């Protein structure tokens, strides 16, 4: 390399480099940082080189291998300059096509990036939503520079800042510039860089002075520094030389962790090149100023990122911090004054000097100027390095740049600042990202890690994870950090295992605050942040673990057990009956189901199967086991009457009477379990036969009436007396029941009264509440729907109404109108799919505004269109009306399905029972008791429309509570972990039987056939399919139930095989 001896020579060289280049020649830019190489960039480089050589294109197409471009999600990516075309996730074959395309001067359309929000293709890098909202002052250089080519750096304004500094030859001016720029340390603490330099410059000049670049980036999931060092090492070197000139430092040290081999390689090359060029070493550019940089590799202790520990590590001692003061700037390496800055801070220095401090200080907000690189990782769509001006809102980074959550789960929190940082909840995403706001919120900026967490992340587990990391990485010198982190971990571990009490939570908090207060260095000081911030914002999750022994994110293994089991409101053991099914033991399987659930056949058809939603197979990338359909297979094969429940009547119970109002799933379940205990139960039912909403609401094609009736019949025994067509509030009151000698009353009358829309003209002919519409049909066979039918709502009741309407004779079309988008519809996705298949139309993002009727009969409905806004605190996206988007739809029938509640007259004459707003009965959730003693309530009448399985769960709980009440025991249900207990030997699968690992869906009636009939749509599995599907189960239970195998037995198995 040519050596330059003065600033003028350097500028000449630069001019030559710039005139020599031809910007019009297309250049393939391959992102080949460590991350790019790991995802296959090396292959692309090889293919590109080969293609260019073979096709003799080297003159016409250039190739540049650069550091990371930041968008990890699309690696390996290829950028084509000067057009700015970007190709994501390029494979070897695609690379060949891209080169062909460049040669022919066209863009390969089908390889372009597809915007996941709109489905549109985007060609240019700058237009990608991920890049569009960023301000890439530092990172954009990475694309333009081949890190091992100094001329690339010079071409892109490299070392210009140094030349400016040398020409100006005024060290005070540099410090003033840095101070004026407002740059604060990018390592996390945010100390003003200019001030630090001034301190160093003011130290007496007697001995040596050190500048250190801290590249010991140890936070899990953070790699900003690595990408700068790999992609643009000269910028750091230039920054340090300028720093040395300003402060009079004599020696520079880059402390880089040894786990960054590529960064070290590029740094070593860059340092050598800089020396050869004459910008580093003795007499830099002939100015008489000398400064050299040495590379020190860290052996990889997290604590060595702390400045005093880092200094000791550089000195060759054990990397442990010491108490400040004296500060490193007073006494650092070997007792000499030392200033330590982070990689990113150093990389900002040339930018400030080159573009002037005034310009730089305009980026960001007051007191927090400039850009900051964040490493955006976790449960987010666009993972990668994001460079944004400080002061930007968290929500902009997460939703606009990051693209929001990956799956359906909502984003719950973001963890900033690495292990010593804290978690900020989604409700605070309006917070501006700057040093002070983050600290106030209980977190820190740290080096810039941002870990996004969604509902499948357990915050207690997160705190435990970081605490585990910190207790291992604490140097152990100061007692409160060493023991404090260990003790905090112990308590957190107990909480996640359900072994802690509420007093442990207080102890944890007390300890965390003392550790924060008393530790020696930054590591210990921040070590409490994960605990304190999660306690501050997610205390309810801790309490849920401790009191209810539940982990709602299904993460804490010792509380969850088998996810399917703990997800089921009634505690069914799906793993167990599926294991029996796989072994062909159907009766055994039925017994397992029936032990916890009195309605196997009904739930096998209409359950909302939380078990499947939580199935580990489903949450780890495949599709969940079809638990519900397998239950159907069992329920269809075994006669319900064959199961004889265990009866435990006592003479005392047999003399007591209980009244159950309502015969839906909740009421019937309560009656059944009370009857097993010997109580005499009378069920009061307003309709002409028992069944409640199962009968009134659920259409026959989902739940055939013979199945329903048979299952109910099996439950009714000599202890249960059903009085039909007797309505609470009309025919009797709760007071009457007590007069008649009932010891307790359970109100489970359901929600059979539709809410109104609150729109004028709602009472016109042709407008029906959905529940009335369904009842008229299910009980009387009345076809109320005619002509063009509209449905308002997006819940299951809306879908049911739509599909029933479609099957009625005089109907021409059915359209569902919903105010949000399809993704937000609360109805089961499967039901929505089936409705659409059958020909139901769906209009989303519309709200009704008015009814137009002719002669008292509905003729048109007026609507307005909505657009979705930002997700609110709960993560659900709000909507707002678009002014001027009104339209009307001619409709003959309108069915309103926007929610149901209890009949308003139900409590007339029953004293002492209170309701809450919205018309539901007020209860104590722990024991279902209403304000009146002896009266309990549960099911839809309390919760509003809810699932069948939740009603059954409430019914079981009610039976237990009423039993306690009547026997004068305390009315509590102790919280217990629900872990698998019974061992069912897994079935041996021969290779021939294995079959496909894909989920088998149960067969359905063909669409054409089912459209006009009420025959059951879903059919039962064949034996082969059922057993094949059952074998897909991962058997999460085995971890808890499998008998321990003696070591000798392992040997035997091995021997047999041999």
């Amino acid at each position, binding site marked *: 390399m040519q050596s330059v001896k003065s600033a003028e020579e350097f500028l000449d060289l630069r001019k030559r480099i710039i005139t020599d280049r031809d910007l019009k020649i297309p250049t393939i830019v391959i992102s080949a940082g460590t991350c790019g190489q790991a995802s296959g960039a090396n292959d692309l480089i090889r293919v590109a080189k080969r293609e260019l050589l073979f096709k003799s294109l080297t003159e016409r197409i250039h190739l540049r291998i650069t550091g990371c471009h930041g968008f990890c999600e699309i690696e390996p990516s290829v950028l084509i300059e000067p057009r700015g075309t970007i190709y994501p996730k390029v494979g070897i074959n695609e690379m060949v096509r891209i080169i062909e395309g460049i040669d022919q001067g066209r863009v390969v359309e089908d390889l372009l990036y597809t915007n996941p929000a709109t489905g549109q293709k985007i060609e240019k890098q700058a237009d990608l939503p991920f890049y569009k909202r960023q301000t890439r002052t530092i990172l954009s250089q990475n694309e333009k520079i081949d890190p091992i080519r100094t001329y690339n750096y010079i071409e892109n304004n490299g070392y210009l800042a140094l030349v400016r500094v040398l020409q100006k030859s005024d060290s005070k001016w540099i410090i003033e510039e840095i101070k004026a720029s407002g740059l604060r340390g990018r390592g996390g603490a945010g100390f003003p860089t200019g001030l630090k330099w001034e301190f160093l410059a003011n130290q007496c000049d007697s001995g040596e002075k050190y500048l250190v670049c801290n590249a010991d980036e140890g936070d899990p999931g953070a790699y900003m520094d690595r990408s700068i060092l790999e992609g643009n090492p000269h910028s750091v070197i230039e920054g340090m030389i300028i720093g040395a000139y300003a402060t009079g430092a004599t020696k520079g040290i880059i402390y880089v962790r040894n786990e960054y081999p590529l960064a070290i390689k590029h740094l070593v090359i860059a340092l050598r090149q800089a020396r050869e060029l004459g910008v580093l070493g003795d007499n830099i550019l002939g100015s008489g100023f000398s400064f050299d940089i040495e590379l020190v590799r860290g052996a990889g202790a997290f*604590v060595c990122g702390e400045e005093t520990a880092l200094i000791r590590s550089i000195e060759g001692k054990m990397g442990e911090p*010491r*108490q400040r003061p004296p500060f490193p700037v007073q006494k650092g390496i070997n007792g000499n004054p030392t200033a330590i800055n982070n990689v990113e801070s150093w990389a900002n220095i040339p930018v400030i000097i080159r573009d002037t401090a005034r310009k730089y200080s305009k980026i960001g907000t007051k007191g927090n100027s400039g850009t900051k690189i964040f490493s955006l990782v976790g449960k987010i769509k666009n993972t990668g390095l994001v460079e944004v001006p400080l002061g930007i809102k968290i929500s902009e980074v997460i939703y606009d740049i990051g693209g929001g959550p990956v799956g359906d789960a909502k984003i719950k929190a973001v963890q900033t600042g690495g292990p010593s940082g804290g978690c900020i909840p989604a409700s605070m995403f309006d917070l501006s990202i700057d040093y002070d706001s983050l600290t106030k919120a209980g977190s820190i900026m740290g080096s810039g890690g941002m870990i996004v967490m969604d509902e499948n992340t357990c915050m207690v587990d997160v705190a435990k994870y970081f605490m585990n990391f910190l207790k291992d990485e*604490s140097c152990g*010198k100061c*007692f409160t950090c060493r023991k404090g982190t260990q*003790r905090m971990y112990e308590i957190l571990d107990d909480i996640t295992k359900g072994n802690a009490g509420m007093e442990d939570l207080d102890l944890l908090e007390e300890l965390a605050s003392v550790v924060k*207060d*008393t530790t*020696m260095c930054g590591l210990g000081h921040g070590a409490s942040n994960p605990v304190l911030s999660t306690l501050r914002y997610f205390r309810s999750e801790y309490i849920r673990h401790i009191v209810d022994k539940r982990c709602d994110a299904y993460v804490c293994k010792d509380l969850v057990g088998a996810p399917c089991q703990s997800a089921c409101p009634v505690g069914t053991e799906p793993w167990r009956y599926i294991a029996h099914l796989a072994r062909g033991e159907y009766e055994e399987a039925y017994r397992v189901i029936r032990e916890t659930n009195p309605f196997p056949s009904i739930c096998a058809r209409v359950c909302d199967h939380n078990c499947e939603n939580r199935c580990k197979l489903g949450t780890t990338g495949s599709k969940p086991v079809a638990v519900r359909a397998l239950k159907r297979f069992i329920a269809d094969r075994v006669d319900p009457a064959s199961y004889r429940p265990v009866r435990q009547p006592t003479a005392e119970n047999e003399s007591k009477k209980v009244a159950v109002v309502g015969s839906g799933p909740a009421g019937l379940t309560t009656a059944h379990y009370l009857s097993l205990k010997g109580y005499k139960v009378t069920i009061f039912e307003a309709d002409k036969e028992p069944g409640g909403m199962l009968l009134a609401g659920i259409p026959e094609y989902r739940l055939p009436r013979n199945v329903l009736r048979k299952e109910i019949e099996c439950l009714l025994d000599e202890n249960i007396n059903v009085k039909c067509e007797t309505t609470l509030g009309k025919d009797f009151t709760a007071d009457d029941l007590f007069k008649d000698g009932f010891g307790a009353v359970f109100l489970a009358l359901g929600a059979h009264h539709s809410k109104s829309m609150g729109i004028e003209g709602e009472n016109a002919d042709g407008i029906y509440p959905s529940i009335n519409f369904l009842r008229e049909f299910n009980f009387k066979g009345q076809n109320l729907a005619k002509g063009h039918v509209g449905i308002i709502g997006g819940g299951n009741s809306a879908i049911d109404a739509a599909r029933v309407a479609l099957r009625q004779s005089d109907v021409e079309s059915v359209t569902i109108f919903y105010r949000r988008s399809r993704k937000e519809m609360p109805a089961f996705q499967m039901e929505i799919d089936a409705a659409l298949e059958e020909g139901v139309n769906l209009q989303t993002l519309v709200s009704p505004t008015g009814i137009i009727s002719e002669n008292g009969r509905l003729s048109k409905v007026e609507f307005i269109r909505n657009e979705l806004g930002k997700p609110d605190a709960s993560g659900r996206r709000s909507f707002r009306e678009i002014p001027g988007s009104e339209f009307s739809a001619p409709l003959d029938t309108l069915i309103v399905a926007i929610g149901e509640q209890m009949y308003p007259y139900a409590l007339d004459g029953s004293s002492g029972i209170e309701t809450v707003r919205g018309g539901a009965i007020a209860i104590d959730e722990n024991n279902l008791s209403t304000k009146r003693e002896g009266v309990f309530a549960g099911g839809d009448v309390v919760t509003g429309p809810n699932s069948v399985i939740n009603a059954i769960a409430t019914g079981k709980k009610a039976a237990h509570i009423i039993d306690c009440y009547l026997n004068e025991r305390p009315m509590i249900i102790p919280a217990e972990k629900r872990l698998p207990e019974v061992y069912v030997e897994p079935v041996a699968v021969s290779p021939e039987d294995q079959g496909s690992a894909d989920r088998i869906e149960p067969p359905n009636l063909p669409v054409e056939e089912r459209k006009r009939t009420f025959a059951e749509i879903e059919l039962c599995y064949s034996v082969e399919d059922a057993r094949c599907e059952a074998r897909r189960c991962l058997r999460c239970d085995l971890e808890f139930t499998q008998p321990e195998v003696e070591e000798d037995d392992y040997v035997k198995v091995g021997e047999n095989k041999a």
Partner: protein
Amino acid sequence: MINLHINGLRVSVEKGTTILEAAKFLGFPIPTLCHMEGLSPYGACRLCVVEIGEGPRSKLVSSCTYPAEEGLKVRTASSRVVKARKMVLELLLASCPQSKVIQDLASAHQVSRQRFKQEYEDCILCGLCTRMCEEQMMAKAIGFRGRGENRSIGTPFDIKSEVCRLCGGCIYVCPACQLRCTYNQPEKAICGGCANLSPPCVEKEKFDDMMCYMDPCVVCEIKKD
């Protein structure tokens, strides 16, 4: 001379004096475990924390390492300090309940229980022994190794150190080992300086019944085997 306030009292001290020394000069008691005159300040035990500064910017620092600064306002027993000290003592009790020094300190601070899982450790890693060895005995025979939970004190590679002169200084300064060597005749317990049932600096397995790593013990002169 530097002027500072300790618990409201003005005091002038020479440059380089620590807060601990200044407080002692005034007669304010500050408990310490890892501090010893003649050894360099270390700041590991965190018992000697005091509160400095005022208002929201006040903070706790270890008084044994913090140099007196002009105009500094120090509180040696504010509620924040007492709360922290009690928690430190509770943690010490949880780890090393058999130490008489720790028991006495806990008792003096009305810490009468500990709420963590009980451990029985022999060493609180205060570093007095390593500093004694290095700074007063000029031997550097023992030092720290490992980090976090696995931090311990010992000779390099656990091999008997060639530079150790068996002076016993390490055991003399140890605040944790208070169980005295009685050899096989309890009534003949000697000075007590010689050894412990479990000395902090050495692995237990190495010492058979006698459990003394000084072989022969410089004090009782009983040789193993």
